């Protein structure tokens, strides 16, 4: 078996930052994409669902894989 290094991993969207906070800040190996929080989702419900132009961040912690 050979070591598979995913070339995309370096530019992977940081799941922690996507959640709202990443402790690694500028030193994170993943990408930190600035986004806008959906105010409806923040209130609890957004009828746009996956088609919303703003973010619906999940609060569940990302897997510990990295």
């Amino acid at each position, binding site marked *: 078996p050979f070591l598979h290094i995913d070339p995309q991993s370096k530019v992977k969207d940081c799941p922690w930052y996507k959640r709202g906070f990443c402790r690694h800040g500028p030193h994170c190996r993943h990408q930190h994409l600035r986004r806008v929080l959906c*105010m409806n989702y*923040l*209130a*609890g*419900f957004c*009828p746009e669902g996956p088609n919303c132009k703003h973010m619906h961040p999940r609060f569940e912690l990302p897997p510990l894989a990295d």
Partner: protein
Amino acid sequence: AVHEFSIDSLEEKPWRKPGADITDYFNYGFNEETWRAYCERQKRFRVAESGVGLASLTQN
């Protein structure tokens, strides 16, 4: 504000469709029923409070 419109006023309820991820629509583990109940409670609370106070509780 989002609480002003009722979920029942929506013609389409796409989160009910097969394959839909309900967490795309509902935050905090809400589903249609618990969200409706929450909105009703908010409304009653708002009436009881004569429209004061709630804004500061929900906007943050």
